[in-house]
């Protein structure tokens, strides 16, 4: 199988290790990948802030860049839902619409790609320690991906999985919400961090780097010993 990588701007700039880890897992599974070097941002920040004109421009651009792709995989539920769920709400050009209609169904979030498309739940990863999982909102409620990441985590060798309280409660990031309402956002994140710590886990896993940016920022401020980790990074352990 051959796929194209969609590496969201936040991952590209702040967490390249997540995309590198994803590549390592894909390679282990025999998936060939290519990277379209002109890709930037899907336009989500503009869309979520209400700026449809700018979002449409970036959506058109995204669809043009990814025009050569057949199957696309991204390590982010949020950016995948931007394309799959929210692009159709924009006024796209006929060409953009055509690409979207073809590409939309072939755009996968990483864990979903592994479990539903490749039918793999054990990638052969190894991790000694206790791990808990945070359901990212877009992944859970826009894409309805709930079980796939859990299956993958449970099958990591040597790992003990533990659910946290309120695992489906938002971490408080919410894109521009995090900076428009920093106090509320931080309060939400603090409760999330406390729930994570209560499990006694060594690591907290999520599938979105944006949530992880929030969770990591708070854990680090609390001088917590829990390590935030993207699912791809966990699955790349020991392979």
């Amino acid at each position, binding site marked *: 199988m051959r796929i194209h990588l969609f590496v969201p701007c936040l991952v590209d700039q702040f*967490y390249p290790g997540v995309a590198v880890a994803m590549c390592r897992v894909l390679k282990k599974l025999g998936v060939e990948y290519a990277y379209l*070097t002109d890709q930037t941002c899907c336009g989500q920040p503009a869309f979520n802030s*209400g700026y449809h004109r700018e979002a449409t421009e970036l959506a058109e651009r995204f669809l043009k860049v990814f025009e050569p792709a057949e199957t696309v995989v991204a390590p982010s539920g949020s950016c995948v839902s931007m394309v799959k769920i929210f692009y159709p709400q924009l006024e796209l050009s006929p060409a953009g619409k055509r690409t979207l209609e073809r590409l939309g169904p072939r755009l996968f979030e990483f864990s979903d790609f592994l479990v539903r498309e490749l039918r793999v739940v054990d990638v052969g990863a190894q991790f000694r320690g206790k791990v808990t999982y945070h359901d990212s909102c877009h992944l859970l409620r826009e894409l309805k991906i709930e079980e796939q990441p859990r299956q993958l985590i449970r099958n990591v060798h040597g790992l003990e999985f533990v659910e946290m309280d309120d695992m489906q409660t938002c971490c408080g990031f919410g894109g521009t919400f995090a900076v428009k309402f920093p106090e*509320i956002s931080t309060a939400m994140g603090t409760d999330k961090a406390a729930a994570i710590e209560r499990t006694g886990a060594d690591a907290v896993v999520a599938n979105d780097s944006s949530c992880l940016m929030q969770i990591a920022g708070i854990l680090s401020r609390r001088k917590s010993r829990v390590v935030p980790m993207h699912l791809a990074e966990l699955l790349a352990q020991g392979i």
Partner: protein
Amino acid sequence: MITGPIKFKEAARRNLAAQDLRENLRRATSHSTTLRLKAVSAVPEWEDLRSEAHAIKKEAIDHLAEYLERFESQATEAGCKVYWAETASQAAEYVVNVCRQKGASLVVKAKSMTSEEMELNTALEGASIQPVETDLGEFIVQLAGETPSHITAPALHKSRTQIGKLFSEKLGMNFSDDPKELTRAARAILREKFMDAGIGITGVNFAVAETGSLVLITNEGNGRMCTTLPRTHIALMGIEKVIPRFDDLRVFLKLLARSSTGQKLTSYVTILNGPREARETDGPEELHVVILDNGRSQLLAHPHTREALYCIRCGACLNVCPVYQRVGGHSYGWVYPGPIGSVITPELQGISQAQELPFASSLCGHCSAVCPVKIDLHHMLLWLRKSAVDSALTSRGERWIIKLFAATMKRPGLYRWSGMLGWMVQRILAPRGKGLRVPCWSAGRDFPPLPKKSFHQLWEEGEIN
């Protein structure tokens, strides 16, 4: 009516800092969400019921004029007097006039958010008519001189101790925080009021077009007292309360109580068909139904938000909302708080009056996931954000940032260059291995350090294979 733009941010900041309030909100909302979850998971066909309710509401709202007229004629035939109020003040004026005609100086009220929209208590007091709230939560809120902070649990923001103090201060009783004792005290006062009041005012949960019936869902029995003891009953409803058929109640009754309090059914379901008939022994002599528009019909024309009219005011979206849970209902500045408030306040009061509300959400979508009539609340917030932008209500600074952002993202070279620039700035300003201090972020959280190389760079340099 609100008198100037709602300052959500300011109020939220204040309420967030109030520790007591945080704790009260946490306790109450987590209690109701747990009960709701338990009640809902016991109904295997829950999702089907939601879809069915959505379809019924769609039918009702798509043919709103028809069903309202049908309701009016059926209710009139049953002996009700129906009054159409375009604005909240018209509705309040009508109620005051009925009270005057009847020479009533005391009015007992059951819970009604519509009456809050009308600011009815103020209007009545202005006409020297004393309104007495008989729902326990509303009674507390009225005693404290406040407004409800939740649509089904008006005094949710208060703890038992706070209520105990309030009672001992205002009612002159010995302090107690025992709910039974407090309820008994309130009941003793209310009993007398029920006997003396000339008029009872209630809200309406459902108005059945087919039969002209008014349906009231309550837990304390006060609603039933308000509709039976006084000689005149005035029922207040928004135009969206109409449902086509009596049989539709089968669906809504299953959904409403479970969503709001986690009960299978509320303690009382009252179905009223007109005032007392000659052969009957109880019920009011006159029954007035006030049907309020107050901006709702404008919502009908908004394709992306009209489904907000499907709301059955269960309060579930408030209880699960992580923002509501932390800032409380009073932060939202008008009658309806939480996710549904963030949608309808801008729609009913004007987006320029409430432009902060659609943005005050992390868009987690929990509200939409629990809504018993499947209102897509968080996606509506996105449309309202667009409408704030289209009406040029966002700040000039923000508009520039977005423009700059889009311009950068359209040019891969510039995008990469700004990433490198960021890294250089970080090297100069931030301690080794740490991220920058970023305004609006770093007060309570650390900002992630930018790595030396982006994924793009690693790829171009052949470090990934």
